[in-house]
């Protein structure tokens, strides 16, 4: 029998090892797998490479891993946000390696890894500092830059509902990096608000098919970045 349901957050992330490359889903607060990230923070795994659109805010989610000194490299498109002080400080002090990638190139590099594509040519970033040192090619009179896939050891993703095969349905704009990242990691770990019986998910609505998912852990009442950051600010001002 195929059963990818995992009993606890700690169990779901137990084999994430020092030095792992991890795709982390989410765009700002939407789709951020905070419960999985905080379990990883508690586990203390170090020397991580995090691939994610943002770098977290306050000391929540990715920012907590950064604050704990667990991350050696971050690959992202937009690390700076209101209250992203942890990455600001680490970067200024030279304590973290930052690879800045245009957002669409980031998504497509991840998708390419999942789709078995060895790279692709994109017009994005031609003529900018982010294209320096990369192979250029003119195709039908237009200039492109070669971009390579970003594969990960693990993906940490948040979805709305999942079943024991690993099929996923997302909630609204939570979907963002979920589907491409689920494809692009050796081990994909997903926190869902609700586990449902096989057959309950509408096959027409499944945005990540089971084959791309390895573990599903139910978190009925997930942590909220907005609430946690507000609490931190309240404490800081107290």
């Amino acid at each position, binding site marked *: 029998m195929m059963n990818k349901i995992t009993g606890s957050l700690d169990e779901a992330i137990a084999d994430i090892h020092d030095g792992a490359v991890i795709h982390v889903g989410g765009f700002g607060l*939407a789709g951020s797998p905070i419960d999985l990230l905080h379990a990883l923070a508690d586990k203390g795994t170090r020397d991580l490479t995090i691939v994610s659109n943002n770098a977290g805010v306050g000391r929540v989610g990715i920012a907590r891993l950064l604050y704990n000194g667990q991350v050696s490299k971050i690959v992202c498109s937009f690390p700076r946000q209101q209250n992203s002080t942890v990455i600001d400080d680490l970067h200024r002090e030279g304590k973290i390696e930052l690879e800045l990638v245009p957002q669409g190139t980031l998504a497509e590099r991840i998708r390419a890894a999942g789709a078995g594509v060895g790279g692709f040519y994109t017009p994005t970033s031609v003529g900018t500092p982010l294209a320096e040192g990369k192979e250029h090619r003119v195709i039908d009179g237009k200039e492109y830059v070669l971009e390579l896939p970003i594969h990960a050891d693990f993906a940490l993703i948040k979805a709305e509902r999942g079943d024991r095969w690993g099929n996923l349905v997302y909630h609204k704009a939570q979907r963002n990096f979920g589907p*491409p990242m689920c494809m692009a990691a050796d081990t994909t770990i997903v926190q869902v608000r609700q586990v449902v019986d096989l057959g309950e998910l509408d096959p027409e609505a499944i945005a990540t098919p089971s084959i791309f998912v390895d573990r599903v852990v139910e978190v009925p009442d997930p942590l909220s970045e907005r609430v946690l950051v507000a609490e931190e600010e309240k404490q800081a001002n107290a």
Partner: protein
Amino acid sequence: MPEPLTRNQIAWRVGRDVPDGSFVNLGIGMPELVANFLPEDREIVFQSENGILGMGPRPEPGEEDEELVNAGKKLVTLLPGGSFFHHADSFAMIRGGHIDICVLGAFQISETGDLANWTTGNDALPGVGGAMDLVAGSKRVFIMTTHNTKGGDPKIVKECTLPLTGKGCVSTVYSDIAVIDFGPDGPIVREKLDGLEFDELQERTGVPLRLANDWQPLEAPALG
């Protein structure tokens, strides 16, 4: 010197140039204002690059959903007919030439329509987001900006000295004093403030301008 347009008035002016039936991406910051001033008789669909078509305004109190945010991570809503999709599809829309218009801010625009708008070059922490994809793929790139920096320097310059976002990508600049088209013939002034002499506009611009034969006065209603 006539009164320059306010931010809201520039947004209103941009809105006049968004045709009925357009798919539009508005950048974070000043471009977001365009949504407030569109002609009411036009149906315009907003794309948000984190995976939304048919994005609506901010939610009413009690209707907020933390999984529904825009590119600026602000809470938004979905309009009837709207849809959600993942990031790779979202940027296929953008890079693949399916977005009619994107509206962005600018630090500098060059004579040939190069754009610099993502880093001042000495940021503590740079961030690029989707700007490079948007300018590479959108059918038209509208720039909303003050004509000059706070220090009075022109934003339209011979060559951008700041790191580029894209080359030759700008279609039209909507500033607080003029509307200027960019193309193979160089910058052409389509509108300028009533009472603003061409020489004065030229003085405040870093590259030679040409005045369109059919130029119009740049006007907007009082919007604050």
